[in-house]
């Protein structure tokens, strides 16, 4: 038996780098031995990706991308397809858990400075994954053709029409394939949701892992284990990924699945947070839901959008731009850089007067997502990990996390009364976390980083 197996393995290995790949990426891939709780979320995101693809395939077997049939086909899956309800709940709950794992995965990166060199490209690939994931979730949400699906898509797509010079209207029409969200929109969203974006996601995740294995994992101490090698040429603080981290990640998977199953079987709607109540009525062009609210993972950015009123532009963004420009001019030494800062600052100020608030709302929403991509260059601290950073970074990060949650909460509430001003303050704080980072990471008092990783 063993002989037959060896012979088969030999046959394959002569034609494909099987053993080499196995060793390079698992059995002889050295990872720091001090990974903690936060390091589960990468492998968990991978698990959720697989869950989404598998449950998605089963849903596609019965779903009908047609405005007349879509809603009923989903209810058909829920009732008449054996285990269809389980597939649907796996998929709808999986979408939310995808964002939970990815947000925690990103928070880990921010805490331990995983985006810093040599991992900038790894972080940027992660950003591409994040944007693809948002596109995937947004288009998937239209498919059940519920009333919130319809109006959510209507509102978000029409945001593009805020782009000036007539480009916006053309663009949003091009995305919809019609003047309103319609059958054409549903069909193309289906195509993107079931094949185009998942294909891109899988490719990006593959590249993500390749990039990770090229530079090696960071760790909670933010120390490069490759700098400290033993006589055998192996990092003294490293252990082979397999079997050590494979067995450890299985524990994480089990813990994750317990929570995941609890939601699927006991609270798949999660009180309207994972499946919205208004989406249990079919799309109705004549009846807007009382409040058009995207799902929770988009609400922080939705808050940024809604906070940007005319007043916010003049009393919030304008002073912010001026202060940031002055601060930059004072801080940089290079004369060219000073001039560039003045130039960019004045262009933004002029634009703030020219363009309407709606456009700035869309821009802020984009910044809310996109600013994460600049972290590798905004963080100027001499140390990577939060363990050795000072109080300024810690305070900034805590404020940012609370701010993110508050904005997320406000995004689900009516934008009126005190909510508006609260969201506007939240928006400024959100921007300041990024804009001021070069300063507070420079002036922060850091602690000395040890030679070897700590347990």
């Amino acid at each position, binding site marked *: 038996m063993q002989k037959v197996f060896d012979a088969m393995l030999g046959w394959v290995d002569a034609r494909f780098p099987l053993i080499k790949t196995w060793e390079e990426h698992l059995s002889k891939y050295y990872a720091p031995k001090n990974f903690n709780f936060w390091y589960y979320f990468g492998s968990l995101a991978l698990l959720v990706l697989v869950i989404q693809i598998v449950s998605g395939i089963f849903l596609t077997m019965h779903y009908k991308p047609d405005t007349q049939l879509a809603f009923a086909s989903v209810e058909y899956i829920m009732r008449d397809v054996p285990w269809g309800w389980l597939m649907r709940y796996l998929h709808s709950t999986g979408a939310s858990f995808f964002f939970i794992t990815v947000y925690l995965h990103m928070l880990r990166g921010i805490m331990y400075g995983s985006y810093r060199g040599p991992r900038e490209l790894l972080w940027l690939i992660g950003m591409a994954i994040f944007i693809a994931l948002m596109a995937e979730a947004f288009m998937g949400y239209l498919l059940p053709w519920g009333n919130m699906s319809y109006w959510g898509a209507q509102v978000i797509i029409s945001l593009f029409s805020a782009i000036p010079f007539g480009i916006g209207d053309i663009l949003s029409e091009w995305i919809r394939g019609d003047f309103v969200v319609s059958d054409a929109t549903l069909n193309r969203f289906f195509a993107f949701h079931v094949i185009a974006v998942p294909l891109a996601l899988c490719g990006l995740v593959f590249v993500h892992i390749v990039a990770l294995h090229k530079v090696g994992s960071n760790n909670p101490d933010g120390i490069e284990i490759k700098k400290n090698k033993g006589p055998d040429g192996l990092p003294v603080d490293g252990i082979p990924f397999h079997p050590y981290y494979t067995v450890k990640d299985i524990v994480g998977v*089990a813990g994750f699945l*317990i929570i995941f199953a609890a939601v699927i079987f006991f609270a798949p709607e999660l*009180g309207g947070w994972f499946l919205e109540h208004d989406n249990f009525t079919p799309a109705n062009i004549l009846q807007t839901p009382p409040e058009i609210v995207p799902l929770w993972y988009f609400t922080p950015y939705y808050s940024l959008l809604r906070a940007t009123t005319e007043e916010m532009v003049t009393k919030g963004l304008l002073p912010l731009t001026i202060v940031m420009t002055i601060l930059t001019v004072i801080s940089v030494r290079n004369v060219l850089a000073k001039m560039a800062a003045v130039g960019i600052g004045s262009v933004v100020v002029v634009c703030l007067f020219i363009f309407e608030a709606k456009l700035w709302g869309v821009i802020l929403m984009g910044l809310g997502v996109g600013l994460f991509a600049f972290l590798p260059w905004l963080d100027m601290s001499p140390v990577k990990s939060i363990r050795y950073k000072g109080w300024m970074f810690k305070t900034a990060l805590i404020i940012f996390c609370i701010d993110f949650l508050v904005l997320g909460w406000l995004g689900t509430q009516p934008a009126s009364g005190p909510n508006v001003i609260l969201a506007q303050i939240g928006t400024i704080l959100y921007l300041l976390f990024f804009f001021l980072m070069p300063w507070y990471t420079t002036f922060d008092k850091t602690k000395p980083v040890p030679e070897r990783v700590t347990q």
Partner: protein
Amino acid sequence: MKKKLITIFAILLFPLTVAAGGGGVALDPVNINLNDKESLQKGARTFVNYCLSCHSAGYMRYNRMGQDLGISEELVAENLLFAAEKTGDLMKAVMPAADAKKWFGTAPPDLTLTARSRGPKWIYTYMRSFYRDESAPSGWNNKVFAHVAMPHVLYEWQGEQRPIIEKDSHGVEHITGFEIAKAGTMTEKEYNEAMRDLTNFMVYLAEPAKLVRYKIGLYVILFLIIFMVAAYMLKKEYWKDVH
């Protein structure tokens, strides 16, 4: 530590409860219990006899309901099949939607998923909050659905209610309760019980999988806990030599 965890949990759950609420009028709590087969059967009878004349439950099949609620195929065919020919048919409304729209001004919406879109409390309160309003075209109005186009179809059971109206400090009128103006065939308690059965059935109707998913979930989680313990022990064993 435990207290801290509970507090954190409570804070996390707070937004859930708030998000689930909404709407202006206070809704009455209702005891939903899908294990109560008798209640579900009674609710089904009321629903099929009184509601399907105008409303559809167009995503649900008669025989599925029969199987789930323990009603035999023959009984379904004899007693419950009004607007359909085969027990495998979907629950369509007796009255064509176009006619209904002509008569009521609004087509009666499909009721399959109302328990998920409006919630059980809303349905329970709605069915008990019709009152006489001579100014309305149908002669009826409703506390939770102002100017509703639906007449009080169970008026013979409940009788006729008149609202008790009070002005608040801003001079706005609120309905604070009801008094029976004309008695129906049921006492208040009997009517409430019937509406609870009906609501219970509509919760089932909105999600038949609810009958099984709790039980399956319990086994799945039990298995996963055992799996996690085993995985943890395996991990411990492997990690013995990592220092």
